[in-house]
């Protein structure tokens, strides 16, 4: 099993604030890695660094063995190999669902419109959204919008999917339909890194759970180990608070 993503000693600061501190992570193919931790612990920044939306201050990032943290690398080529789904969906409001999904396949991958539409409609069918193809995003519920965003990122056949708190903007009922979609992707063998506040979800899909604190992974292991038998006092404290909030 080869490694899709490898992070070596990543360091990132915003001004004087150190956001990622000497962080290392390996994500093998067909596995899901969940990043948990309090807000501000660096989860989102880490995902944005992997996607080259933020530049790192030190360390190395490898995607399928290629070093993508090299400043000479073509960032557009790298991003074509990655899919990213955002907390706030970020669908394009002036484009229909179908146009949102086919934009990148047509403009970036150079597919014909017919070819892109066929592939997109197939994905929409799989996620039970066929009837929404010609609607504009603002006519959809939050859960539907987020599923469209997931489809949009899948349409470019990414090697790795980055999910940034994809359910945080949704109510509990809608959370479920999005989580089901992600679970399906996992069983199809998609490699992913997901930042999440849903501990139950992390348990279900993640092969490895990483607990971030002050920009570093201070505890990692299987979901069972980290979530149910944490060793680090800070992980214990965090999980206790999550438990008190009724989110475990």
């Amino acid at each position, binding site marked *: 099993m080869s490694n899709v993503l490898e992070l070596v000693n990543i360091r990132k600061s915003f001004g004087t604030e150190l956001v990622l501190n000497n962080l290392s992570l390996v994500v093998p193919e067909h596995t899901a890695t969940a990043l948990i931790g309090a807000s501000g612990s660096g989860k989102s920044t880490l995902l944005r660094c992997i*996607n080259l939306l933020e530049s790192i201050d030190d360390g190395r990032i490898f995607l399928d063995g290629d070093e993508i943290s090299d400043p000479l690398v073509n960032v557009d080529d790298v*991003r074509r190999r990655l*899919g990213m789904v955002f907390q706030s969906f970020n669908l394009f409001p*002036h484009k229909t669902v179908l146009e949102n999904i086919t934009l990148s396949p047509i403009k*970036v991958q150079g597919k014909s419109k017919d070819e892109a539409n066929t592939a997109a409609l197939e994905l929409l069918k799989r996620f039970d959204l066929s009837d929404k193809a010609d609607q504009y995003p*603002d006519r959809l519920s939050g859960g539907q919008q987020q599923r469209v965003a997931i489809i949009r*990122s899948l349409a470019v056949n990414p090697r790795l999917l980055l999910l940034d708190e994809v359910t945080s903007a949704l109510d509990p009922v809608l959370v479920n339909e999005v989580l089901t979609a992600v679970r399906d992707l996992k069983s199809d063998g998609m490699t992913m890194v997901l930042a999440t506040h849903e501990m139950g979800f992390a348990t279900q899909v993640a092969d490895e759970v990483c607990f971030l604190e002050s920009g570093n992974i201070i505890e990692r292991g299987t979901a069972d180990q980290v979530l149910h038998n944490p060793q680090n006092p800070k992980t214990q404290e965090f999980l206790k608070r999550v438990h008190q909030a009724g989110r475990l």
Partner: protein
Amino acid sequence: MSEKQNSAWSPSSREIQRRQSRRAISRKQAGIAAASSIFVLGTLALILVTSPGWETVKTTFFDIEYGKEVFPTVIKGLWINLQLTFIGGAAIGVIALGLALLRTTKSPALTPFRFLATAYVDIFRGAPLILIILLVGFGVPALGLKGVSSNVIFLGTVAVVLTYSAYVAEVIRSGILSIHPSQRAAARSLGLTSGQTMRFVVLPQAIRRVVPPLLNDFVSLLKDTGLVSILGVTDAVRAAQINASRTFNYTPYVVAAILFLLITIPMTRYTDRAIRQRTSAQNSEGAI
């Protein structure tokens, strides 16, 4: 909505009472509005009609017979204003878009052009239009450049285009800057280049957002084309001026003003409607 209502539903007596109260309130408000309008407009009319110079003003500004006589020449001049507006408007659109893109680009190769675009906007947005018209209209022919027309209509249009491109560029730029960075992040994460992101994601949304202010500028443009009359272009203003100075009767000015209003008032009403629609659309987006 009404179809979703239960057909067996009929308003309660309390609701009927409330509706009667609301009707009574709106009747009262309509009455107050009518009374106050009659009072204010009546007072203004009275002041006008009873002023000592009213009779003279009536004959020198509102001479209907003379107005009819000059109408054909003024409307012929207005045709020049309209042509100038539409041809100039097209040129302004293209130049302003270019300026706005230059001012928002981060490309290092375009750095000198970004500075030039900024300087251009500063200069032409800051100088009075009438000065630009005079400078271009009299300055360019004085240069004696070969191949550059000294036609006053052409030079007047150039001056207006130069100035309005700066205004419109700023409107478009504000639209571009108003698009949330998350839209750009989403597009870039899909592998779109920064140029593709601008063209397919940012600009379409930005332009839609600034349509109302652009329509506003379009109305101003039509009015300001009247300024090229100072170069001797026989537009509606100049046509009125020629007639007025021949007879010392100022009715042609009023005719020209009314003709401008006949075009600009519907346009402003339309703009207001566009702004209202935009606002309500944004509100519905905000509810999600």
